[in-house]
């Protein structure tokens, strides 16, 4: 088991690597690259975390898994608030999101927030995709370290 500091440094370094090596014009790609890295990690993680649990009843049940077990294993806490419009949109609110706590507690460095949230968004999307839910995950910050993840389920 690794120490959280190591993981946080690795995450930061991953971001700075991508931005360091990308040309100015393609910096937009960095976010999607980070997201796809997270997707991969999330996919494998949900596989490992659910190997002993029974099948989820429905979509809401799966979301609860993300908010409780998944969040607990990854961030050592549960999601503080889960809301849904019952039409495929879920909002997960974390009042003290781990990747943001060291950065700021206010509005300073707001423009840096997207970089640090792309990987976590990807992780959620990856985890859900492996549980049979296709979705788009976006993050929204109004003041660090609180953060809202919006999950929009794609229905065919």
């Amino acid at each position, binding site marked *: *088991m690794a120490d959280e500091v190591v993981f946080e440094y690795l995450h930061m*370094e991953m971001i700075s690597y991508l931005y360091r090596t990308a040309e100015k014009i393609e910096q937009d790609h960095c976010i999607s690259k980070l997201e796809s890295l997270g997707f991969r990690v999330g996919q494998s993680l949900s596989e490992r975390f659910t190997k002993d649990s029974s099948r989820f009843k429905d979509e809401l049940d799966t979301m609860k898994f993300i908010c409780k077990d998944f969040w607990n294993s990854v961030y050592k806490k549960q999601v503080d608030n889960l809301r849904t419009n019952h039409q495929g949109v879920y909002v997960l609110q974390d009042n003290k999101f781990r990747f943001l706590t060291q950065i700021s507690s206010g509005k300073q460095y707001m423009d840096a927030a997207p970089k640090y949230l792309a990987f976590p968004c990807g992780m959620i999307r990856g985890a859900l995709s492996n549980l049979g839910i296709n979705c788009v995950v976006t993050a929204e910050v109004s003041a660090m370290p609180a953060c809202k993840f919006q999950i929009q389920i794609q229905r065919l």
Partner: protein
Amino acid sequence: MSRQSTRGGDPRKVNGELFTLTYGALVSQLLKDYEDDDEVNKQLEKMGYNIGVRLIEDFLARSNTGRCNDFRETADVIAKVGFKMYLGITPVVSNWSPAGDEFSLLIENNPLTDFVELPPGHSSLCFSNLLCGVLKAALEMVQMEVDVKFVQDQLKGDNITELRLKFLRRLEDAIPVGED
């Protein structure tokens, strides 16, 4: 090493699988970006270096270790305190050179390579090269210039993973790297 999820465990630890998988995803991204093993090694070491520069501060603040008197003590601190604290393993220190300026860290189960299998055609890739950078930078910050490299790797079929550290010289008190 325990493989359960970390629910209720030490609050300072993250799930080992999360760490391993993230590192793996990063390496495969680098392989995609460069398609050249040597360049990937270089990038990994560079990233490790950037991590090591910061990690040493966290380490000194948390572990209460003072200055080491000799390289043997340094070796012990790295293996028994550093590795233990950050990766949860304790490598064996061995193969001292007669002059006492070179030793090996024998790592039995490298947490960075938990689910990893190297596909063929990557014989010069050092999967865990990040560690070299971390050690080099961390020691540099305490005025020791050290050469670190992998000489054996379980991923390549060796029995054990061996990390060789060679003391090069003591750095005089100078401006830290990057602040000139």
